[in-house]
Each structure stands twice: as C-alpha cells, then as structure tokens.
C-alpha cells in the first residue's frame, strides 16, 4: 500500500509534488477504501490530471511549410477543482452494518471526512480529502518544425525514485499540421493537431491521454491570439496490493476522465527568442495553462 501512496504523490504534479506529503499520510487517506468507493474517491484525480495533460499543447497555429524552428520550454497546467468534484456518494463497506450511503469528500474534498453510525454504536468513517482547489503540473516540452507545414512536439520526463516506486515516466508526442497553407489569403492560421501521452509510475500507475483537435491563431507584431477545439480522453489505471489484517488483496481502479470536448482560448507573446503564453481550457475539467520557453 505504501507503494500506492507514493504513486499517488507521483501522480500529483508529474513527479513535482512527490516526497512532499509523506507517504504514510496519503496511505491513510486511500487505504480506507477498496474498489468501488476508491473509484469515486479518486475519479476527480483522473479528471484533473487528464485535463491538465491534455492542455498546454499548442500556443499558436502559424507553421511555415518549410524551414527549421525549435521551441524548448516548460508548460504548467493548473486544473481548477470545481465544488462538484469535491464530494461523491460513498457507500459503507461490508461487514459494516447496516449498509448506508453518505456524501463523502473525494481526494480533493474537505479535510474533514464523513461518518455514519451503525448497529451497537459502530461507526463507519469516510476519510477526508486534501482540500485542494487546484492541481498544478509542469512538464518540459519541445517542438520542432517544419516539414510540409508540420511541427512535431515531444514531452518527456523520467525520474528514478526509490525501489518502492520505481521510475516515473511521462512520454508524449504530437504534431500540428498547417491547414491554412492550402488556402490563399486565409484570414487566420489554422492547424490540425494531436497529442498522445503515456504516464507511468513503476508498475502501479498507468495513465494514457489522447487529444485531437483544430487550432487557430491570429498574430499581430509580438502578440498572438489563439484558440482551438478538440476531443480528449484519459484513462488512469491504478493497481496495488492492499495489506490488511485479513490478508493481502489486489485493488484496481480503472478510471476514465470526463473531459471529452475541450475548447481553448489564449494569448502568446513572442519576444524575439523568449516565448510566453497563457490559455484557458474549457471542458468538463477547466484548466489554466501557461508556458515559458525559448525558440526561434
């Protein structure tokens, strides 16, 4: 279970927050739940993490047909945790009697848990959450182009942790292809793009995200206004061995994020080689993305 806990920490922020909240504590948050409640407890994590990873991919749609250019930067994506992501309908787990439901905090919910009373003064405690309003992550991103109006994008992080967690890896690749190059005097730049990412924590956590969409931008001097619409999906699979006094059982959560349609609006500043951008991503999971990088 401790492996799982550390994995949760690793999920938060793609390895940025791990080792901050000690493993023991988060273990005590999640160890209370087995499969069904656990899925409800952690679903907002899949939504927020998936929504974030599927953001910050592009900050413009101007791609020349040919010519070398490169961008190297850091993308930060902050998922905004809505109130309805902070509670879920939890069920008491057997052998607690009698079976009841309660509105309990999710992983992002109130720090104070919920409790229901059963026969003979027994009490079922639903654990509290981390009381978070936002979940930021940051990843390095490199974009290289262009060939036939196509630019490739890579995201890559690999961190070796201790033997309990193993490697934390994020690999993503994507591309944007200019559509506006096929039209003369098209008023804005237009691209079609995709980004596919895989995030792994040892053999415990595997998250896969996919984003496909259309992007448009309009540039004047150093300013670029950009936006887009796309379809995104995320799966988050977590499996671990839970050691209780009654023995060891394997707990699995297969979560899918509710972030299908996504829309983006943002602004970028191109200060010679310094590039800054910020955008807001609308969807089932709202995300603010901002990036800083260098490119030419």
């Amino acid at each position, binding site marked *: 279970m401790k492996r799982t806990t550390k994995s949760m920490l690793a999920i938060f*922020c793609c*390895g*940025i*927050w791990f080792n*901050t*909240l*000690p493993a*023991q*504590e988060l273990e*005590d*948050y999640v*160890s*209370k739940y087995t499969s069904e409640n656990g899925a409800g407890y952690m679903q907002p994590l899949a939504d927020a993490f998936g929504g974030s990873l599927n953001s910050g991919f592009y900050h413009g749609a101007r791609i020349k047909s040919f010519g070398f250019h490169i961008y*190297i*930067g*850091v993308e*930060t994506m902050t998922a905004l945790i809505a109130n309805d992501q902070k509670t879920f309908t939890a069920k008491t787990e*057997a*052998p*607690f*009697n*009698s079976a009841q439901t309660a509105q309990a905090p999710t992983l992002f919910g109130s*720090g*104070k*848990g919920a*409790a229901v009373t*059963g*026969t*003979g*003064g*027994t*009490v*079922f*405690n639903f*654990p*509290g959450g*981390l*009381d*978070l*309003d*936002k979940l*930021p992550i*940051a*990843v*390095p991103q*490199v974009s290289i182009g262009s060939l036939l109006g196509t630019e490739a994008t890579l995201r890559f*992080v690999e*961190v070796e942790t201790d033997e309990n967690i193993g490697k934390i890896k994020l690999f993503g690749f994507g591309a944007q292809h200019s559509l506006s190059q096929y039209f003369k005097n098209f008023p804005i730049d237009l691209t079609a793009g995709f980004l596919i990412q895989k995030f792994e924590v040892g053999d415990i956590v595997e998250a896969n995200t996919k984003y496909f969409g259309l992007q448009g931008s309009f540039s004047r001097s150093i300013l670029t206004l950009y936006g887009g619409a796309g379809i995104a999906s995320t799966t988050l699979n977590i499996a671990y061995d839970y050691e*209780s*006094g*009654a023995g060891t059982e394997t707990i699995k959560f297969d979560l899918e994020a509710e972030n299908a349609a996504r829309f983006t609006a943002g602004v970028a500043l191109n200060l010679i080689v310094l590039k800054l951008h910020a955008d807001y991503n609308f969807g089932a999971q709202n995300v603010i993305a901002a990036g800083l990088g260098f490119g030419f």
Partner: protein
Amino acid sequence: MKKFIASLPLLALLMLTGCDKRLFHFVATINQSPTFTFDSTGPFVQRVVVTSDVIKAAIDVPSDARITGVDIESLSLRVAVKPENRATALSVTGVTINANQQRKLMFQNYTVPLVGVNVPVIGINALIEDGISELRGKINGYVQNTDNTAFVIEVSGNSTPSSGQRVAIDLNLVVKATVKYDQCVEVPQLFSSGEECTE
C-alpha cells in the same frame, strides 16, 4: 543545450517551491482477529487476552500525530470448519471482561451457520452498544496511552438448533477499528488551501 534541457524539470520543481504547514485529518485502520479454537461436545467457552502492546503494534500512526478518537467499525466472524465437526450452526455470545471482571456483552446468541455457507467473513449485524463502547474505550486508551491494562474477549456458545453436537472449528473474531488522527504536514504553497496548522 543539453544543460538547458536537463535543467527544465528542475525549473519546473523550482516553480512550486515554498512550503507551508497545513493540518490534515487522517484515518488509519486496525484489524485484529484473535483465534478461538473449539473442539468439544456441548457448550463451549474460550478467552483471549488482549494487551495494549498487541493493539499498539497493529497501528501505524506517525509519532508526531495527535490521535483524536477511535471508532469500532465492525465485528465479524471467520470460521474454518474441521472434518470432525458435526454441528450445522452455532449460537455464539461475545463479551469483554475488564480488569475488574466487569462483563460487557458485544453480541449475544448470534447464529453462525457452518454448512452451506461460502463467505469469507460473517458480519455480526446485531451488536450491543455496551460491549462495543467498552471495546472502543479500551482501544482508545491503548492508542492514546491513557490505559495499559489488558482485557479479555470471551466467546461462548453451543451448537444450534440441536444443542450438544460436536463443534470442531477455528473461529476468528475480526475486529475492525479506525483511529482518527491529525497531523501537520508541509506542502507546497500552491496546494495549501486546507486548514491552518496551529502547532
């Protein structure tokens, strides 16, 4: 260029530095399952002594945590029936006995089927508050270091519906309790929307 690329994850880390202590509420689970072995004809009774050391060894709470309470979540029975057993069901009673020999009922004449049952544990759904309260108080005293005197759990009973049949079983009384505790933990300021730590 390589140095720059290598420094990017570090840059990302630096963006989130700056820590703040926040108060977190945690719930730890204790599972205890003392074993009662019965091989007798007619009424049976067995006792198990529970010590504070056993309970303390079963919990995993950080040393700087402040325990705020203990709850009993459930009592259940796990039965392993031996070939010599002839009883089809049991009627069992469980009590706590403290150092002053005070007996508190946790459950009474609870029927436990021994045949045709294929469940790992049988939840006891008719618990008695008197004994559960005593059990909670003892465990709470142990984890908060306010009580270190041992107590006894006694399980007794007979075969049912026909009494006097040979009972040959191993019976585990599975006690599931939760320990609630608070702890101040350092988290990055970006995350710190929780309660302030007053320590």
